């Protein structure tokens, strides 16, 4: 089953075509890497898929809903986590969980159960009443991810999720992502850190509003005859500059 | 001092390129002065007035004419009786009534004691007081004039004229007030925001790591706001004089010197705030709460200090704006010299030295 299908999705701002007829699909439980340089159009594309921006033309379904007609339904079925902002630093761990549970309409009894379950999975029972601002970055990120998938979304958008954390925490974080994907949650990662991209099942690279490469890391390495994602990215970016 | 010059120049670029800053710097003084001058005025114009004239002689007619010739009163007509006047009051047709006793002219020239009664609608006490004050002033004026012309024999008369601002023009009070508020805003708030912005953007780090001596960073950033403060002060006084006919009785030089002292005091306060905060937002909140509110409320600009409760009266003493407003009013309206404002000047100077010392002590040549 496809969780995202996009067909010739386009967004123009005046004369400028930010996203130019992109078509792709993402399967359920897949970890999909959505890459591109700043200004390549990935933020605009992601805004359309999350219902924050109306496309100029083209079609897309997210979690089975149309992105023109069923924006509110889509929002209930997706989660979102950004590196910069996800949790309120001046609220405690349990207050943050309570808040997001409330936002997504989780019933009080379910929420209590989920909260204690989540805290014990993360080993955060001891700090449940601690302000999030005083937690180490790695803990915050794991908590932010858990909160983002607390309402069992079909699909979760992660924006540069592991920038700046130490290598062990980073791997623990990817293990959490793998685990969620294993349970059937689809993961949509936007990033411009290429080594982060290597952890994805499949990757798309955008340049100048178009998808310039799409495939598994191995397929891309063979197609571009490059050793890693970084080298592929450099090839694509250089190509688009001269074009 | 090329380095200092470039810091000053850069600050001007910041100011001139930010339309919001420009608006605060030049739009606000203009709007405030015009608003206070024309719209939010406690001057009353065209209040309707009725007269019960039991004399009906030349003096009484001239007096009524004098009153209604001013902008303040509109003659609503003669009334026959006290009952009629009260009725007019109840219907809200008039704001004030004048009762003239019989034989006014005779009593006047014979130096007999006469009483003219003023009746005002005190549902709005401020308006009533103001109207009565206007009328009293005009009547006294008239009386004085008449007596002079007559070369009358020695008479005892009560002096009731309002001195320095005989017609209670509110704009005379607002010009010094607005000037104080604007200078506080430009010098203290804008400076503290400009300094904390450098911290927030991280450019303060680069400036500190440069060979430029740390005090010069501050001086360079502050000089533009000093200049702007002077420009604003000039703008406000010019508007006051040209548009509202505000008098400047005293020495222009003294006015300028006192203004400089007040700007320096405000700059010191702005720097002090910036040494205590790291974000523009906090700097702005601190400036608004700790500087602007007291300047507007406790300085005597809008609410007379004499009618405040005792604790607030005491508190008003530590507000620099209070002293500056007193100085301004003295110079502009009373036309007095330094010998009459030296005490207030000394207090301001003391505050300036204190704040400067405090900011020097708080300023760090490093980050933390």
């Amino acid at each position, binding site marked *: 089953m496809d969780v995202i299908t996009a067909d010739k999705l386009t967004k123009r701002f005046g004369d400028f075509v930010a996203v130019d007829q992109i078509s792709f699909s993402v399967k359920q439980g897949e970890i999909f890497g959505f890459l591109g*340089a*700043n*200004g390549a159009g990935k933020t605009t594309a992601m805004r359309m898929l999350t219902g924050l921006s109306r496309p100029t033309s083209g079609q897309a379904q997210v979690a089975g809903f149309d992105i023109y007609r069923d924006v509110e339904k889509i929002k209930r079925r997706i989660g979102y986590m950004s590196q910069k902002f996800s949790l309120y630093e001046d609220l405690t761990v349990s207050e943050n969980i309570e808040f997001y549970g409330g936002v997504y309409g989780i019933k009080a009894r379910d929420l209590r159960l989920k909260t204690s379950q989540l805290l014990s999975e993360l080993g955060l029972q001891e700090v449940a009443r601690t302000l999030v601002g005083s937690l*180490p*970055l790695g803990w915050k990120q794991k908590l932010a991810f858990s909160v983002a998938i607390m309402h069992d979304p079909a699909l979760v958008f992660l924006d540069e999720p592991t*920038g*700046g*954390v*130490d*290598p*062990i*925490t980073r*791997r623990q974080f*990817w*293990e959490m992502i*793998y*685990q969620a*994907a*294993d349970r059937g949650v689809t993961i949509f990662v936007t990033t*411009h*850190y*290429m*080594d982060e991209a*290597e*952890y*994805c*099942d499949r990757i798309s690279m955008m340049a100048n509003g178009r998808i310039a490469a799409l495939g*598994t*890391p*191995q397929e891309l390495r063979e197609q571009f005859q490059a050793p890693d994602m*970084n080298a592929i*990215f*450099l090839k694509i*970016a*250089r190509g688009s500059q001269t074009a | 001092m*090329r*380095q200092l*010059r*470039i*810091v000053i120049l*850069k600050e001007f*670029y*910041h100011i001139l*390129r*930010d339309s919001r800053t420009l608006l605060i710097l030049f739009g606000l003084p203009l709007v405030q002065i015009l608003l206070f001058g024309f719209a939010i005025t406690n001057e009353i114009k065209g209040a309707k007035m009725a007269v019960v004239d039991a004399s009906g002689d030349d003096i009484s007619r001239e007096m009524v004419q004098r009153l209604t010739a001013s902008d303040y009163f509109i003659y609503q007509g003669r009334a026959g009786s006290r009952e009629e006047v009260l009725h007019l009051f109840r219907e809200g047709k008039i704001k004030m009534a004048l009762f003239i006793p019989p034989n006014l002219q005779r009593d006047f020239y014979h130096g007999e004691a006469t009483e003219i009664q003023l009746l005002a609608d005190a549902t709005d006490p401020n308006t009533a007081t103001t109207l009565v004050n206007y009328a009293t002033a005009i009547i006294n004026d008239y009386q004085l004039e008449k007596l002079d012309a007559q070369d009358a024999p020695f008479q005892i008369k009560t002096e009731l004229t309002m001195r320095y601002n005989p017609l209670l023009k509110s704009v005379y009070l607002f010009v010094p007030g607005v000037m104080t508020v604007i200078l506080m805003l430009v010098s203290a708030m804008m400076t503290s925001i400009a300094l904390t912005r450098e911290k927030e*953007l*991280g*450019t303060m*780090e*680069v*400036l*500190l*790591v*440069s*060979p*430029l001596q740390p005090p010069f960073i501050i001086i360079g950033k502050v000089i533009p706001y000093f200049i702007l403060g002077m420009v604003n002060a000039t703008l406000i006084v010019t508007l006051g004089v040209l548009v509202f006919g505000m008098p400047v009785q005293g020495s222009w030089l003294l006015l300028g010197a006192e203004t400089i002292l007040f700007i320096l005091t405000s700059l010191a306060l702005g720097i002090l705030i910036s040494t205590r905060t790291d974000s523009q937002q906090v700097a702005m909140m601190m400036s608004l709460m700790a500087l602007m509110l007291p300047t507007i409320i406790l300085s005597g600009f809008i609410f007379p200090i004499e009618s405040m409760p005792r604790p607030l009266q005491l508190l008003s003493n530590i507000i620099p704006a209070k002293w500056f407003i007193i100085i301004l009013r003295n110079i502009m309206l009373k036309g007095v010299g330094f010998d009459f404002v030296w005490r207030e000047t000394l207090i301001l100077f003391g505050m300036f030295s204190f704040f400067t010392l405090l900011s020097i002590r708080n300023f760090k*040549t*490093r*980050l*933390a």
Partner: protein
Amino acid sequence: MTTHPPALVFDNIHKSFGPVTALEGVSLEIGRGELFGLIGPDGAGKTTLMRILTTLLLPDQGAAQVLGYDVIKQWRNIRREVGYMPGRFSLYQDLSVAENLHFFATLFGTTVAENYDLIRDIYEQLEPFRKRRAGKLSGGMKQKLALCCALVHRPQILFLDEPTTGVDPVSRQEFWQILNRLQDQGITIFVSTPYMDEASLCDRVALIQDGHFLAVDKPGALAASYEHPLYAVKARDRFRLLQDVRQWPPTYQAFPFGEQLHLSTRTEIDPQQLVGYLTQQGHQEITVTPTAPTIEDRFMELMTH
């Protein structure tokens, strides 16, 4: 032979902010002309160390000299000789490219023309946008402009705090090429980064974590000092693969590593042995190959010691 003091030397630096310890006794010596990398995650103490060395913060304990000047007593001398580029590119957003550069040149008592040869390479790329406000530049352009501003007075030593964070791979690659050319001109460079893959571009690196140096060495030597046999393992179901590999008795540690996972074992193993075990567990498309450890592997190994 002249006896220059080393470009940078510090010994047993401690720094705390209230209850938070940022640096806990770090020491190092860097020679003239070296390109030195300070590598570690956010919150490891990189920025604090940068700020102490650029005289912006005082250490609680320990001593440091930059170009032979003491960071506490001779901060004025240091501020004249160093170039510093703080974390967020500290440019004036409302000033144009040319104005920013002119400002910083004047601040350091020099002119753009005087040291133009040093920044020519970089500035030529910015030239087309010289009238554009710095706030409207792309991340990569801002980074280059900030570098120009830090270089315009021809400093002997350059401190760069995370210059490549938030910048796309193309700009990152160009930036490192620029650093190499500056090094050729004799400038000592002390650069911090959270990206492990940038370690190999430095002469020497210090790995920093929780206010400690885990190791200081040449990048090649660091990777080579990895203590266990290392294998790259791949199968179709990654999540289950990780669980199963961790259950395997010879396993020391297993971590995801890109699309593979890196398995370190207590002793040398025969890859076929693991393939057999994983086939038994029902895995498909299994590959197990010995692989060369990276700095990141070594970093993790040092973290768990």
